[in-house]
C-alpha cells in the first residue's frame, strides 16, 4: 500500500505553489453531498490566521457587515440519522463520528467556508495552527500553533493553552492501528516537536495536498493529553472547538453549548446546538414541518411539496462527488475481457437521462422552476467540476457515442461481438448500505441489461460480509458488479481505477495508454496542464469503457433550512465533515 501512495503522490512542490485538494469522505458512506474543489495555483498561499470568515487573496471579497444584524442566542436544532458509533474521534472511521467530533475538537487546518465563498475557492486555512512553512524541497513542513488556542474551560483541562504535548498524544491516536487513520497519511515519515508550540512533519515525498490532509476531518483531530487517563473520550468530549460538549443521551440527542473562549472572536452566534437522533425519514420531515428542526435533508421526490408547504423554506442543492460504476470480473476467459465491444454495448444500453430522472426527479423539478443538475458521470464524477469532462461535449470524441442511449446500436454491437443470448450473467451489488436512490438505480440496470439481451441473475450481497471485502476490495467475483467508487480527495484517485496494482483497480485493468497518462498527471505541477491530462484520460477511457460510469451520485442532493435560520450563503463544505467548525458557528436565528 505504501509504495502505491508513493507513486500516486509523487509531486514536487515549491514553497509558493501547491495544488489544492479537497477533504475526503469516508468510503462507503451513504450518498453524501460532496462537490469538487478547485485548484489554487495563483500565489494564494495566505496562510496567516483568519480572524473573520473573509478568506485569502483569492476569494471574492466579502463585506464583513454580513454579521452586522446578526442576532445572538438561540439553539440550533438539527438531526442525525443514528448514534455515532463512537464519540471518540479516533474510535471509529464512520463519518458520523467525524462530523460529531468537529463540534468539540479542532484540526490544525480547516476549510475557509464563509459568506459568498464559492465551492471552487475553498481551500485549507489555519484553524488551530497560526501558520505553516514548507522547506524548499517540499519534504519538511513546520507548523506553529496559535498563541490564543485554548481548550474548553471544563475539568480536567480547565481552559489551559493547547501545546505540542497534546499534538503528540493525538498523533499517537492517529498512528494507532485501531483508528484506521494511519493508512490515509502514508506520505508522512515522522513528526517532531521542537518546542511547545511548534510541530515539524517530515514527508517521505513532496506532497502537494499536505494541508488538505491536515484539514481532512478523517485524519487529525487535536485532543488534550488528559484523554489518556484523565477522562474517558468514549463518554465525554473535551477539545478546543467552537462547541462545548453538554450531554449525550444515547439514541435521543447530543447537546452542545457555545464556547465563549473560541479564538474566532464573537462566534458562535447561537448559544447551543441540539442534535436529535431521528432514524426515520418520515419523522425527520414531520419535525421539520412543525418547526422542531431547523434543517433537514429532502429527497428529490418530496422537494416540491416541502417547498409549497413550508413557508419561506430555503433550499440548497449540491451535487455529490460520488461516482457509481458497473465493473466487470477480471477472468481472462470472460467474453468482455476478450472483446471491448461488449462493455461498449452495455454502456450504450444504459439510459442515463432516465436514471437521472429516476434518482433525482430532474424533469419534475426543472418543470417547477428549480435549478437541478442532471449531468452524466464520466470516469471522473460530475460533481468534481474542475476536472470533469462532460460526456455530451464534442471534446469527448469517439467515446461520446458510448454514453448515448441507443438500444438498437447497442444490440447490433453486442451480436457483432458474438454474444451468446443464452449466457446468464450474475449481476451483483449491495442493497443494504447506500440507500434508496442507489438501490433504485441498481434495480433499473437489470431491466436495461435484459432489454439489451443479456440474461441476468441478480445477487444482492451483504455489504460488510461479502460485497466490501470480496467483490469490491479484492475483485473476487464473477459477472457484473455495481457500486459506488471510494470518493477521493483528488481526481487522480478515480483515474487510478485502471492503474495496475492500485487498490481500487477492481477489474485488474492494464492498459498502456491509460497508465502512461496517469503517471504523467501524477507528477504534473502546472494546473492547466494537469487538467488537460485528465481530459485526455477521460477521452481515452471513454473509447474503451473499462468501467461503465452510471448515474447514482451524479444528481443534486437537497437540504432545507427554515426561514428563521440565517445561513447567509455559508454552506457546508462538501467532502469535509467539519461543518460544525467551518459553518454553523456563523449561522444565526432571527427568531
Amino acid at each position, binding site marked *: *500500500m505504501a509504495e502505491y501512495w508513493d507513486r500516486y503522490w509523487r509531486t514536487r512542490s515549491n514553497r509558493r505553489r501547491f495544488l489544492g485538494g479537497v477533504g475526503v469522505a*469516508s*468510503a*462507503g458512506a451513504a450518498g453524501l453531498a460532496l462537490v469538487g474543489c478547485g485548484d489554487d495555483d495563483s500565489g494564494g498561499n495566505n496562510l496567516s490566521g483568519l480572524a473573520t470568515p473573509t478568506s485569502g487573496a483569492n476569494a471574492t471579497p466579502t463585506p464583513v457587515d454580513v454579521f452586522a444584524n446578526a442576532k445572538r442566542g438561540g439553539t440550533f*436544532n438539527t438531526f442525525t440519522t*443514528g*448514534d455515532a*458509533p*463512537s*464519540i*471518540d474521534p479516533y*474510535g*471509529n*472511521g464512520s463519518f458520523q463520528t467525524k462530523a460529531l467530533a468537529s463540534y468539540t475538537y479542532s484540526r490544525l487546518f480547516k476549510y475557509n467556508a464563509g459568506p459568498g465563498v464559492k465551492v471552487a475557492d475553498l481551500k485549507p486555512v489555519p484553524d488551530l495552527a497560526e501558520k505553516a512553512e514548507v522547506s524548499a524541497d517540499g519534504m519538511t513542513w513546520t507548523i506553529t500553533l496559535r498563541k490564543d488556542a485554548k481548550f474548553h474551560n471544563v475539568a480536567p483541562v480547565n481552559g489551559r493553552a493547547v501545546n505540542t504535548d497534546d499534538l503528540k498524544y493525538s498523533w499517537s491516536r492517529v498512528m494507532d*492501528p*485501531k*483508528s*484506521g*487513520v494511519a*493508512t*490515509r497519511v502514508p506520505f508522512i515519515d515522522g513528526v517532531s516537536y521542537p518546542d511547545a508550540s511548534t510541530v515539524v512533519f517530515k514527508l517521505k515525498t513532496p506532497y502537494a495536498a499536505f494541508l488538505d490532509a491536515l484539514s481532512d476531518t*478523517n485524519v487529525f483531530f487535536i485532543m488534550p493529553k488528559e484523554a489518556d487517563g484523565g477522562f*474517558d473520550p*468514549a*463518554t465525554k468530549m473535551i477539545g478546543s472547538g467552537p462547541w462545548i460538549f453538554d450531554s449525550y*443521551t*444515547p*439514541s*435521543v*440527542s447530543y447537546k452542545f453549548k457555545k464556547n465563549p473562549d473560541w479564538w474566532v472572536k464573537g462566534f458562535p452566534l447561537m448559544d447551543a446546538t441540539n442534535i*436529535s*437522533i*431521528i*432514524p*426515520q425519514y*418520515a*419523522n425527520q*420531515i*414531520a*419535525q*421539520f*414541518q*412543525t418547526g*422542531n*428542526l431547523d434543517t433537514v435533508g429532502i429527497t428529490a421526490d418530496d422537494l416540491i*411539496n416541502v417547498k409549497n*408547504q413550508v413557508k419561506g423554506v430555503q433550499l440548497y442543492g449540491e451535487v455529490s462527488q460520488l461516482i457509481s460504476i458497473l465493473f466487470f470480473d477480471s477472468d481472462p476467459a470472460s467474453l468482455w475481457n476478450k472483446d471491448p465491444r461488449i462493455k461498449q454495448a452495455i454502456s450504450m444500453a444504459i439510459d442515463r437521462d432516465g436514471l437521472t430522472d429516476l434518482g433525482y426527479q430532474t424533469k419534475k423539478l426543472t418543470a417547477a422552476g428549480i435549478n437541478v443538475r442532471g449531468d452524466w458521470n464520466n470516469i471522473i464524477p460530475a460533481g468534481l467540476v474542475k476536472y470533469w469532462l462532460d460526456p455530451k461535449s464534442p471534446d469527448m470524441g469517439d467515446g461520446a457515442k458510448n454514453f448515448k442511449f441507443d438500444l438498437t446500436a447497442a444490440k447490433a454491437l453486442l451480436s457483432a461481438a458474438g454474444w451468446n443470448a443464452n449466457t446468464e450473467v450474475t449481476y451483483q451489488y449491495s442493497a443494504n448500505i447506500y440507500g434508496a436512490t442507489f438501490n433504485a438505480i441498481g434495480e433499473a440496470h437489470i431491466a436495461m441489461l435484459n432489454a439489451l439481451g443479456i440474461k441476468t441473475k441478480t445477487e444482492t450481497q*451483504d455489504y*460488510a*460480509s*461479502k460485497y*466490501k*471485502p470480496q467483490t469490491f*476490495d479484492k475483485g473476487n467475483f464473477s459477472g457484473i458488479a455495481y457500486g459506488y467508487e471510494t470518493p477521493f480527495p483528488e481526481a487522480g484517485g478515480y483515474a487510478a481505477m485502471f492503474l495496475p496494482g492500485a*487498490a481500487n483497480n477492481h477489474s485488474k485493468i492494464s492498459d498502456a495508454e491509460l497508465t502512461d497518462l496517469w503517471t504523467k498527471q501524477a507528477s504534473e505541477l502546472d494546473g492547466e496542464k494537469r487538467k488537460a491530462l485528465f481530459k485526455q484520460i477521460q477521452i481515452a477511457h471513454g473509447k474503451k469503457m473499462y468501467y461503465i460510469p452510471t448515474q447514482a451520485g451524479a444528481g443534486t442532493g437537497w437540504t432545507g433550512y427554515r426561514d428563521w435560520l440565517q445561513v447567509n450563503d455559508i454552506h457546508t463544505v462538501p467532502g469535509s465533515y467539519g461543518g460544525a467548525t467551518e459553518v454553523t458557528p456563523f449561522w444565526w436565528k432571527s427568531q
Partner: protein
Amino acid sequence: MQRYIIRRLLLMIPTLLGVTFVVFILIRSVPGDVIDLIGGAFGAATPEQRAALKEEFGLDQNIPTQYVKWMSHTARLDFGKSIVSGRAVGDELKNRLPVTLELSALAILVSLCIALPVGIISAIRQDSAADYLGRSFAIGLLAIPGFWLGTILIAMAGRYFTWGVPPTQYVGFADDPIRNIKLMAVPAFILGAGLSGGVMRFTRSTMLEVLRQDYIRTAQAKGLRERVILVRHAMRNALIPVVTVIGLQLPILVGGSVIIEQVYSIPGMGRYYIAAVNQHDYPVIQAINILVACVVVFTNLGVDLLYSVLDPRIRYG
C-alpha cells in the same frame, strides 16, 4: 411449594446457559469480521494490526474459553464494553431497559382494554353479530403491520395535522410525564393493538369454557341475574388463565418493539440491539440476549406462581 420454586429456579440455569451459548456461537459464525468494521474507512488493516485488535477484544481465543470468560463476567453483572463505541454495556442497558419496559407495560394495558371487553362479549353472544364484529375488529388490529401504520401516521401528521407529530426527543416519564405519554401513546397503541388479537381469542375461549360449566347452570337455575352470574362467577374464573397469557406477552413485546422504536425514535433496547447486530458488536448482543432471556424465564415462573395463587385447584408439589 417452596421446593417447586427452588426446582424451577435451578432448572432456569441450564436453560439460560443453553440460550446464551446458542447465540454466542451464532454470532461468531457470521462470515463478516468485526475487525474489518472497526478498522475505519479503509478497513484493510495489516495483519499485525488485526492481530492486535483481535487480542484486545479477546477474539483470538477459542470459543469455549471466550464463553467461559464471558459467563464469569456476566455472573458478576459486568457486561463488558461495546466493541464499537467503547461505552459500558451495563450503563446503556440501565438507561434503555426501563424505556422498553414502559412501552411494553403501556402496550399490555392497551391490549387488555381492547381484548377483555371484546373477548367477553364475543363469548356471551357467541355467533351473533356482536361476536363477528368484535372478533373481526380484534383480528383486524392484529393483521395491520405496525411499522406501516406508524410511518403513515407520522407522515400524514407532518403534512396535515401537525399537532399529531410526536415530540422530537424522548423524555423519561419521571422528567416530564405529559410529554412522555404524548410520545409513547401512539406507539403503545400500535403495539398493544397487535397483541390484543391473541389475548381476545384466548379470553373468548376460556370464557366459553367457563360458561358451559355446571356451576353456571346452577346459578342460572337459582334465578340470579345474568350480570351477577357474569361478574361474580364467570369472569373471575375465566380471567385466571388470561393472566398467564398476559405474562407471556412481555417477551414478545421486548423483541417486537424493535420496529416501533425505530419509527418513533424511542431509545429502547430494540434499536440498540439492531445497531449491535449490524455492527457485529458481540458484547452488546450477548448482554441483551441474556437479559431478555432472563425476563422471559422469570416471567414464566412468575405467571405460573400467580396462576397457582389465583386458582386453588392448582398446586405445585
